[in-house]
């Protein structure tokens, strides 16, 4: 058994203390943690779900664009942040487990270390337009 990269451990510990939904993926794109606030948004705690493979976790919240079209996995900010090694930002609509739609802004950034990329973090914010993040459509 090997230890997770320390940067991921510290990121998880920080995210655990945040009230903002936050997601953590490793360098392979595997979703390795999301915090309690994200669990409330999704309707399922991370401890219940466990890690989710790359290409699979996007479907957890089914992001849609303004016209209601699904956003391809490769276009998600967290995916591009890890892939390109640069921060990424987007606005889209997600569906929580109860079917409610939430308009969110997502900021993602890669975790870059002396040993290269170790993964990335995405933080979700309700859009300013809707205040509580509830989508109008």
């Amino acid at each position: 058994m090997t230890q997770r990269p320390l940067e991921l451990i510290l990121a998880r510990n920080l995210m655990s203390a945040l009230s903002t939904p936050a997601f953590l993926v490793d360098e392979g794109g595997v979703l390795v943690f999301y915090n309690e606030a994200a669990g409330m948004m999704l309707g399922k705690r991370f401890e219940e779900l466990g890690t989710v493979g790359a290409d699979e976790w996007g479907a957890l919240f089914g992001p849609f664009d303004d016209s209601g079209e699904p956003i391809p996995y490769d276009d998600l900010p967290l995916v591009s942040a890890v892939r390109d090694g640069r921060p990424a930002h987007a606005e889209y609509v997600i569906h929580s487990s109860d079917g409610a739609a939430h308009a969110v802004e997502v900021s993602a950034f890669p975790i870059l270390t002396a040993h290269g990329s170790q993964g990335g973090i995405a933080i979700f914010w309700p859009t300013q337009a809707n205040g509580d993040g509830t989508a109008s459509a």
Partner: protein
Amino acid sequence: MKVKLWGTRGSIPSPGPETIRYGGNTSCVGVTLSDGSLLALDAGSGIRSLGLDLGDEPTRLHILLTHLHLDHILGLAFFAPVFRPQTEIVIWGPASPEASLRDRIARYISAPLSPVEVRELPCDVSFRHCPETEWEIGPARIRTASVAHRGPTLGYRIDDGDSSLTYIPDHEPGLGADLDRLEDDWISGFALARETSLLIHDGQYTDSEYPNHIGWGHSPLRDALAFARRTGAERTVLFHHDPMHSDDFLDRFSVEAKERWAALGGDPAAIELAAERVEYELPVRAPRAVTPA
């Protein structure tokens, strides 16, 4: 493998009548491998005594630095073997994106902080960044991992034959986390310490002191015990004593540690506070006090 504690104190040397029994020198542990190869873990002020103890031997040794905080390197310029031309010293340490290991150490061994410069040291000294993978020194396999502390910091595991030593003197694995709830691979330092023969681990603070020192990079007793229990270390030595902790204080702290370890289901004899010049021979379990400090 023989292990001898030459400096057990954290932060700053703390000599005086109130620190005689546990010692006032900062971090340094001497390790003699099964083939006689010598390692020094960290180069705090305790390494000066190690150097004096060595006499004219050996001609080759390795110094493994966990990090470059002053209490872990301040003895380097006072380590007698560095002033002998026949000595070959390899200094291992963490890489940093900022500067090489040599350049970072040279900030201390240079004017105005030091009367000598690294380039003036008579010994044959080289500096190596610890690889991410396991490597060998003599008969031992050496492994490192980045651990939770301030700045680039490593823990070490040394496997020699059937015994192993894990050295994580500066460590705050419980920062922002409940060690009893995390999965093994999410615990800083876990893989290094897993079922190790001897764990030398940070135990700087009491639980009541810790709230005023969260994020300083050191463990309260609660987390040191939880880490030792989770990793299944056979014997644990609590290290890096706070400079404000007198011998009498540490005596009481030791009693508390043993009682709480027993309450967790552990053998009270398997946990103790580090004391300068105490020696351990692995895999022999019982510690042997050689020369009280």
